[in-house]
């Protein structure tokens, strides 16, 4: 047995000189010759670059409200934010009927609300499934119409609502599929195992673009003549199938991290396969894999821009279409920066959320 000594010394303060701004700078910025050079180079770049950026983006910029002529006058010296003032609705909503823009706005709010609710750990339960089904139905109703709203064909959907739909629906519908695939890959039934492995490895082996192409050009060939599947639906299905394969591998990582004793204890209590998975294994495995799951949502959000290849006007393409206007065409960069900011805002918040989760889940796991 180990000897346990009682503390005989009183706690001491850390030695002087190990903290303070000067010490920090010396240690972290000028710790070696190499890091000193690096510090100087980076400072030089900042001093050279930042003032001209501020001048271009703020001081000499042409703000919304001004016309294209003012922009042309400031061309090369100041940013033309006026282009966004003029085109933002076209960029955000694409070709969606102008007078109905309140509908995609509301639809996006509903979707964001559903996403935000899902972010709160207190709501992590089976009820979330109901919330998502309702949220998705309301979104589709607002976008597509029917039941008192004028119908808007999917061919006119575009911009941010389409991007959000492809990413979030893709994620949410892929999730249960991914769980089944991940469980299937670890199944003791050979047929189920083989099917899961083949599916996951096939899909992971090809780029998303090729799946989108397949959906658009090959799938109709196999369909009975006369039947057509909506282009948006085809892209959405391709994204779901793609995402399911990647998520399955992420979830499998979580399943593998779980000690074997957990499922043994559940077996010993006669819980049976499905109850063991649902009540014991998945709640723990998913908790472990949430940070990588959010990571894959970030990739997916950006990857949705690939649907432009099958002529869907997601945010990126609708911006390019909006910039087809010859009057504003020279101010492409500003419009680009605008949608980059939108992409960045989404991905950055997801990334922050993932970091927050990692922190709380880590302690949560140790304590629980």
């Amino acid at each position: 047995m180990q000897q346990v000594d009682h503390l005989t010394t009183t706690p001491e303060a850390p030695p002087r000189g190990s903290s303070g701004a000067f010490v920090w700078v010396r240690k972290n910025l000028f710790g070696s010759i190499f890091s000193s050079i690096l510090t100087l180079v980076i400072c030089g770049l900042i001093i050279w670059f930042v003032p001209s950026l501020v001048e271009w983006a703020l001081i000499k910029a042409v703000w919304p409200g001004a016309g294209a002529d003012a922009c042309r006058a400031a061309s090369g010296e100041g940013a033309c934010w006026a282009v966004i003032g003029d085109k933002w609705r076209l960029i955000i909503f694409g070709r969606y009927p102008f007078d109905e823009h309140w509908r995609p706005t509301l639809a996006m709010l509903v979707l964001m609300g559903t996403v935000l609710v899902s972010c709160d750990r207190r709501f992590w339960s089976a009820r979330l499934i109901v919330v998502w089904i309702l949220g998705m139905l309301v979104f589709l109703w607002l976008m597509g119409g029917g039941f008192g709203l004028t119908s808007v064909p999917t061919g006119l959907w575009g911009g941010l609502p389409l991007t959000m739909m492809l990413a979030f629906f893709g994620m949410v519908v892929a999730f249960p599929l991914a769980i089944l695939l991940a469980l299937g890959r670890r199944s003791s039934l050979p047929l189920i195992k083989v099917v899961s492995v083949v599916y996951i490895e096939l899909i992971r082996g090809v780029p998303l673009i090729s799946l989108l192409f397949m959906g658009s050009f090959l799938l109709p060939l196999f369909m009975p003549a006369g039947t057509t599947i909506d282009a948006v639906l085809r892209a959405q299905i391709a994204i779901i199938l793609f995402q399911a394969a990647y998520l399955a591998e992420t979830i499998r990582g979580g399943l593998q991290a779980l000690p074997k004793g957990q499922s043994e204890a559940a077996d010993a209590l006669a819980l049976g396969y499905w109850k063991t998975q649902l009540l014991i294994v998945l709640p723990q495995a998913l908790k472990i894999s949430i940070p990588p799951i959010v990571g894959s949502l970030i990739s997916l959000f950006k990857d949705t821009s690939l649907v432009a290849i099958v002529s869907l006007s997601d945010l990126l393409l609708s911006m390019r279409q909006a910039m087809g206007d010859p009057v504003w065409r020279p101010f492409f960069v500003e419009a680009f920066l605008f949608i980059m900011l939108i992409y960045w805002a989404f991905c950055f918040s997801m990334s922050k959320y993932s970091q927050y989760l990692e922190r709380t889940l880590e302690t949560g796991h140790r304590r629980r």
Partner: protein
Amino acid sequence: MAAVAFHKKDSTPAPSATPMVTLEGVNKWYGQFHVLRDVNLTVKRGERFVICGPSGSGKSTMIRCINRLEEHQKGRITVDGTPLTEDVRNIEAVRREVGMVFQQFNLFPHLTVLQNCTLAPIWVRKMPKKEAEEMAMTYLKRVRIPEQANKFPGQLSGGQQQRVAIARALCMRPKVMLFDEPTSALDPEMVKEVLDVMVELAREGMTMMCVTHEMGFARQVADSVIFMDRGEIVEQAPPAEFFKNPKSERTRAFLGQVLAH
């Protein structure tokens, strides 16, 4: 002793004649490795068996075959009249009647102590939640930790966790309890609190099979002590005889080691 018995149905301390667990010619291999060799064993209702033997002798494997955590390849295992076969219904029927306590506790860390105890009664026995919670509280009282009911396993000491694990198994009202080295992962000062609970359980007539090196426990409660080595049952005898004059040389060597300290 407290008023609530651990086990109401079979609280007759004297072993009766019906066999609870029988192993007949059980053999098991891990690949080429012959881990159980022709094991024969009969545990009657209310009997308490202690199984000991050197590391790697197949004690865990044998006890885990009884609730099919491991599959045997040859021979017959019967639990309370139900033969363990490929049939999933038989396996689940057996598991419902067999409680198991693991060396590493294996509590569910994402559930509270109370939820750990009520999970199987609610989902397997279809017991109403309220009734399951009341029953769980009686068992938690019996293992002397009712005040921890709403904590998570990670907040308890090892000894407390193992007592929760015992309560969790008892909540299924099992006919047999299997213990696989329940005190080996515990700090020495916590061993006694777990052994006390086990002794009490034995006194109330629970059929028990314990893999353990706690020879004091074996002397105190066992009806029969089994010595296993290299996958075989080398010797089986009542504790008095087992400890006083072991027949086999291997048993003597093992006892020499275990009792030396």
